[in-house]
């Protein structure tokens, strides 16, 4: 029965000249297409931004960051083993030392974060190798220690593969607590990384953990451990368990809390943008409804004749709602198509012209991500609005008496 109504509804949407839609219908449909398209693009950009950020943080800083404050004499290997044994979720861990320094090169100075990592276990935890844009992924220690640097540093200082960079590191004085000594470390650039996040690219230098231990004169000590979990999304729930295992003396944060304000802002932005752009869809849906209203009034006699040979008011309401849903469906389909095309356009623009200033948006490239759930929500809400908006013209048609309609000829 509904198929019949659908058949009649879709046929009645066409004009007598066998055009698919009347001009009014097309114009209102265009509004819907643009609204849905904009929403698809904005959600894809926000989702992409969130994913780019999440991936960047996870690749560079791991899923869980453990800072060791305790004086417990435990090697990093034992600590990682202890953590791995305590929970199946843990995949692996890598020790790190972070120290701030100042890099000087070709007359330029800039603050950098030097992170010493264990070359043997780095690949098991961090996904840095896929971020290599130039050179080789190596951080050998020894006489001429190697370093991997963020592309921002490379650009800022004009550094290239094989160049030697100098970093001055402050070492706290054991005699005078308010004094520090400076140590110079020379590193050979082995590779340049695109770390995804602007701050990382501008500041991060990765090198061998032993090199940093020697420079900072701390022996076998380490700042902490970066962990990789089997499921990144369980990181937050995992932290209390880990705190219980490790006890006091450790500060544990998940990938999200490292950048909490940013992720929270993205979450809020997503909701705000959704509702702001949804107003466009709302307006467009009511436009569709108003063109249906005109349709109903213009087709008084057709509606009357359908009623005269047995179309009930309920069927009529369903039929007119179906018309709106057909239009809504077409609008959604075309809108999603337009949205996907715009996403491709956006990707191309940012690749070709670098339209995103990293200093403002934290990332300089967004991997556009069209999420099924986003598109599903957009389609469902649009169709719902189209349905609700169609109820007024549908009720108008149902209220009209058959005789009234027959007089309209």
């Amino acid at each position, binding site marked *: 029965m509904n198929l019949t109504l659908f058949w009649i509804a879709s046929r009645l949407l066409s*004009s*007598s000249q066998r055009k698919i839609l009347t001009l009014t219908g097309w114009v209102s449909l265009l509004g819907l297409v643009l609204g849905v398209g904009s929403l698809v693009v904005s959600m894809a950009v926000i989702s992409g931004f969130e994913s780019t950020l999440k991936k960047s943080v996870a690749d560079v800083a791991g899923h869980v960051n453990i800072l060791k404050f305790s004086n417990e004499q435990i090697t990093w290997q034992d600590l990682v083993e202890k953590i791995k044994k305590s929970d199946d979720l843990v995949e692996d861990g890598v020790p790190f030392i972070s120290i701030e320094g100042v890099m000087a090169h070709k007359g330029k100075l800039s603050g950098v974060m030097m992170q010493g990592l264990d070359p043997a276990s780095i690949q098991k935890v961090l996904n840095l190798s896929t971020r290599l844009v130039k050179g080789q992924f190596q951080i050998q220690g020894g006489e001429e220690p190697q370093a991997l640097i963020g592309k921002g540093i490379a650009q800022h200082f004009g550094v290239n593969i094989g160049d030697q960079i100098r970093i001055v590191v402050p070492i706290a004085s054991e005699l005078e607590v308010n004094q520090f000594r400076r140590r110079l470390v020379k590193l050979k650039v082995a590779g340049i990384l695109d770390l995804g996040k602007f701050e990382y690219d501008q500041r991060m230098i990765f090198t061998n953990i032993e090199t940093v231990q020697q420079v900072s004169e701390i022996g076998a000590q380490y700042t902490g451990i970066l962990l990789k979990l089997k499921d990144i999304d369980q990181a937050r729930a995992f932290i209390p368990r880990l705190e219980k295992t490790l006890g006091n003396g450790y500060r544990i944060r998940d990938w999200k809390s490292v950048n909490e304000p940013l992720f929270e802002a993205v979450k809020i932005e997503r909701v705000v943008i959704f509702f702001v752009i949804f107003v466009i869809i709302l307006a467009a849906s009511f436009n569709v409804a108003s063109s249906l209203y005109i349709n109903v009034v213009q087709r008084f006699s*057709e509606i009357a004749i359908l009623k005269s*040979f047995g179309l009930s008011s309920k069927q009529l309401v369903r039929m007119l709602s179906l018309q709106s849903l057909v239009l809504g469906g077409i609008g959604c389909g075309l809108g999603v198509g337009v949205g996907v095309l715009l996403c491709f356009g956006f990707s191309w623009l940012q690749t070709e012209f670098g339209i995103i200033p990293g200093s403002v948006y934290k990332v300089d490239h967004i991997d556009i991500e069209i999420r099924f759930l986003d598109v599903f929500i957009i389609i469902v809400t649009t169709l719902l609005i189209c349905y609700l908006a169609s109820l007024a013209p549908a009720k108008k048609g149902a209220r009209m008496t058959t005789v009234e309609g*027959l007089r309209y000829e």
Partner: protein
Amino acid sequence: MNKPILSARTLTKSYTQGTGELPILKGVSIDIQAGESLCIVGASGSGKSTLLHILGTLDRPDSGELYFEDRNLSALSDDELAQFRNSTMGFVFQFHHVLSEFTAIENIMLPARIAGISKDQARADAMRLLSHMGLESRANHFPNQLSGGELQRVAIGRALMRRPKILFADEPTGNLDSNNSQIIQDLFFQLKKDYGLTLVVVTHDQKFAEKFSRQMKLSDGHFST
């Protein structure tokens, strides 16, 4: 005498005009026998069409009752009446009201499709009706490709699609030239014979009216024989 197929009891109907009421039907009663052909005549504005609409359940009277066989139609809801019309009554109007978005055969299929009859079955039945009316070659033509007479024949086919017991027609030849008018008139009586229809027609055309087994004249809201 047999029991009437349709029976109206003291029907009244008035329309609001300005601040006053304009009475159209002032207590009309009529019994229509199964298989008869009844013609309602009368001057313009005498209430012929209003009566036809009420007898065909397209409109409700202000007072009075309408029975189909033993069933009180006045007690049915609008949706029940719609279903009743679909299965029992057929309508042809002065203007064909053939839907321009549908082909001739699709227009004829519509009442069957609304009743939930399958597409294939409806198409087969519609095709039979079309050939009965000599329009089989026009099955897939759209209304703008058909002449006035052909359109009225499509409208008649549509009215007959559900094999109604009563066929109502309101000035069915009023908009046609004399040649087409003659074709339609003959068709009505041919179909009445073929389908065993009860025919209730409103017309101005005296010659057409004379072909009916019974003529009722409506004047001043009453029947005058």
